[in-house]
């Protein structure tokens, strides 16, 4: 009975995802998804930033330590950055952050970096569906229970 209840609970779990979207591509992509009335899970809380390269690892860590179940960073496709190379730098920074999270055994799978252009409303919606499902599978962020950080 209790097993069943747990199972039921996991399905019920609605992940909270913090999304940092770049002003020029991914945010416009999300906008397009909205204006095109494409349905996608409401689990992502979007924060508009000027460039994926402006998202310091500290902000991603902050969201994770506060108990966000996932953090999404969306930037322009390589070569398309409004600031020439912000997304390339975001990519290196993500590699570094994932490496450190890996060393410390903190779930790096909760951090996603994806390229979504202003014309890819459908890709944004699909990515949000994929991420919500992937994070749902991971379960609630265990860090959320820790109040002594």
């Amino acid at each position: 009975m209790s097993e069943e209840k747990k199972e039921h609970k996991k399905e019920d779990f609605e992940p909270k995802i913090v999304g940092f979207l770049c002003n020029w591509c991914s945010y416009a992509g999300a906008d397009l998804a909205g204006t095109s009335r494409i349905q996608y899970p409401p689990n992502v809380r979007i924060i508009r930033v000027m460039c994926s390269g402006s998202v310091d690892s500290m902000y991603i860590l902050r969201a994770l330590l506060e108990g966000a179940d996932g953090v999404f960073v969306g930037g322009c496709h390589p070569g398309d950055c409004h600031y020439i190379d912000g997304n390339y730098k975001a990519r290196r920074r993500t590699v570094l952050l994932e490496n450190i999270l890996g060393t410390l055994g903190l779930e790096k799978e909760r951090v996603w970096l994806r390229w979504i252009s202003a014309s890819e409303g459908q890709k944004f919606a699909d990515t949000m569906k994929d991420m919500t499902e992937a994070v749902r599978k991971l379960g609630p962020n265990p860090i959320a229970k820790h109040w002594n950080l």
Partner: protein
Amino acid sequence: MTHKVIKVKDNDVVGSANDFLSHLLSSGKIQALLVPQNTPSKKVAFPVLISDPKKLHADIVAPILPVSTAAIVSKMTKVQPPSKPLGVVMRSCQIRALIELVKLNQASLMNIVIIGVDCPGTFPINTYTEFPEKKTPTQFLLEVWTKKSDEAEKYFRSACQVCKDPVPTNADIVLGFYGADIEKEIFVEAHSEVGKNILQELSLEDEKEGKNREKAVKEIRNEKNKKRTVFLKEKEGIKGIDKVSEFFDKCVNCHNCRQACPICYCKECLFDSSVFDAEAYKFLRRAEIKGLFKMPNDALLFQLGRMNHMILSCVECGLCEQACPNTIPLMEVFIPAAENAQKEFDYHPGKDTSEKIPMIVYREDEFLEVGEK
């Protein structure tokens, strides 16, 4: 490379090294020296800027690193480097840190003559100050060295025990103990044109047993490398939020580690900035999310955030750990993190000023799987 020796007189290694340094200073080849010298109480040796050879009573062996020498060179050179050569006596970890600071535009090597010293390790400040053996730490270290025993190992800071490389690289002149019969001589090597020019004019004897030095350096590097590998394996256990939060539990968010770190150079650290000032309701709202909330907040965020900002340049000097008022063994986390992160970017901090810091460069055709899964 020029190989010379300093003859050790009356079994006084430190004094003979001082004769060499004071000779260097009075020759006019360098205008001043930054070198560790014991304070009048003899309780601690600090880097001292010496311009008068008569006042030179340095102790280049003193096993203590109270502050980062690299940070001091940064302070002295970043506004305007000296107009005449300045000799700087440094341990290998501090030379590595200085190279990193040069890359970060926080120091200049112009007119800086790096005099590297072989370093078997340093003691924590308080061990040095209240040394339990009935001799000075320097005497003890030299005796242990002559006996080739590992008695000093237990006193060394943990970072020194697993030192990446105790032999200086990138120095102009190296004062070498490894492989030398230190009752008789210390090796002096020139590793650069600048060093060569300086040594040429000092009348020093040629090194006869160059092979000994080479072999001893290889041995000590192997030995330290083995210890570091064992350390890395042992510390693999700190994984998962339960263990990580327990590890940093004693952190009071004082930021001393950042203050002591040679790499953390930011005038205003992000973690001291107003980004972390917030209205009371925001604190209360955060408390509401988890039901309760430890103050001061964001200690772990500071640790992990700082790690993200400096780990690629981490030279593993262990000054962060030495600065911690609550003795958190920071190196247990920072050495594995540095090892993995630096490997990921194939980056070697302190190796070469021409090697770019990974976070300021990129290639279009790298890490293609990231962002495209």
